[in-house]
């Protein structure tokens, strides 16, 4: 059963990928036939389909094996992106961990003291209305003044995006046990901390994981935006920025690095998915032994 499931995921992924490529190439081919108009009409297509705007999927894939310069060394683009991606991944991972810790901490604080919920929740909501692009340079400048390495500053930017979904969903999850469960713990004279660890936190997991998947992809977005906005010398964000400036020369390269960023986002999403399956599998997918003895 388990092997079949993995195979299904792999097949679905490949089919989905081929579908995207087919759509891309089909649209491009159609544009070539009709001089960028919808067939049989004089309505222009929303985007031009020439090789500069939409390079062939094969060219983008091929570009991954072209050699690029990395400092003094020369290496294929896919290795270069992998290296930069690893750096970005680290920033995202640190940012994600901080976000998880801060979000959980805030949720527990708000659970423990109603006053904290009333006082903090509006600020937590407001925090997300500040544009990241405006905030990033402030964080970095402040970081450099305090001798904090750029990688940490970028992680903080990712944290800023990730703590929010964690805090909000964790609070909901911690408040999710029903009265009977809480009365049960009260009947055991269980102290608040015991109720937190034995009841509220386990019950919160089902609420937390969807938010963690969102937070994981947001942490990658945060890291890349952070890199771009502070002009760091490495990371995927840097690569994207550089290739964007040389778009007219080799558009394939920018597309390839965007694909790299997407793959990074998908991998962290997959990691959280895997963690969820490991943590939650014990209560899910079990067959019912209904009405055997009742």
């Amino acid at each position, binding site marked *: 059963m388990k092997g079949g499931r993995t195979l299904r995921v792999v097949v679905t992924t490949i089919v989905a990928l081929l579908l995207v490529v087919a759509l891309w190439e089909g649209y491009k081919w159609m544009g070539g036939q009709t001089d960028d108009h919808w067939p049989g009409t004089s309505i222009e297509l929303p985007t031009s389909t020439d090789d500069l705007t939409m390079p062939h999927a094969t060219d983008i894939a091929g570009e991954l094996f072209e050699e690029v310069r990395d400092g003094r060394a020369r290496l294929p683009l896919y290795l270069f992106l992998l290296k930069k991606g690893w750096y970005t991944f680290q920033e995202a991972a640190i940012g994600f961990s901080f976000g998880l810790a801060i979000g959980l901490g805030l949720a527990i604080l708000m659970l423990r003291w109603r006053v904290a919920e009333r006082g903090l929740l509006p600020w937590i909501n407001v925090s997300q209305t500040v544009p990241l692009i405006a905030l990033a340079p402030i964080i970095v400048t402040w970081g450099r003044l305090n001798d904090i390495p750029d990688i940490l500053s970028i992680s903080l930017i990712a944290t800023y995006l990730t703590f929010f979904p964690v805090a909000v969903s964790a609070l909901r999850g911690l408040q999710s046990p029903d009265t009977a469960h809480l*009365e049960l713990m009260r009947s055991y*004279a269980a102290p608040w901390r015991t109720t937190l660890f034995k009841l509220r936190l386990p019950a919160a997991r089902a609420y937390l994981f969807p938010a963690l998947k969102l937070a994981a992809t947001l942490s990658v977005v945060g890291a890349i935006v952070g890199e771009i906005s502070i002009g760091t010398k490495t990371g995927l964000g840097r690569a994207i920025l550089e290739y964007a400036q040389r778009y007219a020369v080799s558009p394939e390269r920018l597309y390839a690095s965007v694909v790299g960023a997407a793959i990074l986002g998908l991998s962290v999403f997959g990691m959280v998915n895997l963690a969820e399956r490991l943590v939650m599998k*014990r209560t899910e997918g*079990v067959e*019912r*032994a209904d009405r055997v*003895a009742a």
Partner: protein
Amino acid sequence: MSGYVESEAAVVIDGVDKVFNAGSLDEVTALSGIDLTIGAGEFVSLIGPSGCGKSTLLRLIGDLLTPSTGKVTVFGKPAHGARLDQDYGMVFQHAGLFDWRRVAANIELPLELRGWSRADRAARSAEMLDLVKLPDFGGHYPRQLSGGMQQRVSIARALSFQPKLLLMDEPFGALDEMTREHMQLELLRIWRETGTTVVFVTHSIPESTFLSSRVVVLSPRPGRINSIVDVDLGERTDDTREDPAFFAKATEVREALRADEVGA
């Protein structure tokens, strides 16, 4: 029949009123002037129409609520102290098992909180699973069990630390009739085997008559004890349900409930 000596009393309720939201526009007097003594080892049912405060009364005994006036004594100490000493086990209408724990781990929860060793817990939960006749289900998850089976696990959990008092809030209310009758017999067997005191909230006349040694009939809002029906039907079996003496007692309980309606 109920000639229990004061010192043997499991629960003494003395002049208890319960008012919710006192002083506010939505003030509700849930219970008024409740006096009741429940002897150790007794099986007492609290019956009344919805909203008569029978669940509130149960929660006052368990110190999940505090009385507005009067006092509740459990095994000679204030209800609050009895809760801190974990003198009672509680069973709710919905089994209230923790989905993420296996059946055995659910039963062991109160033992875990009391700091029992792993081996002792495992031994006790196995014992409890035998008691509720689910010996092979310790490794299952609650969602894999039917409603009746879950409720047995919930009873096993409540009894796992051998409390002298079992508080049950409409525990069979969500079960189908067949399962319900079966569970009633099982509960009586467990009650006889463990010698625990049971306070049982229900709104079913036959259920209260079948199970209890005394049925406490409550009137609707504000809840008052209208009358107490002594039930002496000897050892219950499935045949008891068709016994004329059982019908006579059920009728007595029914009339006590009706007397309220007229009075109200």
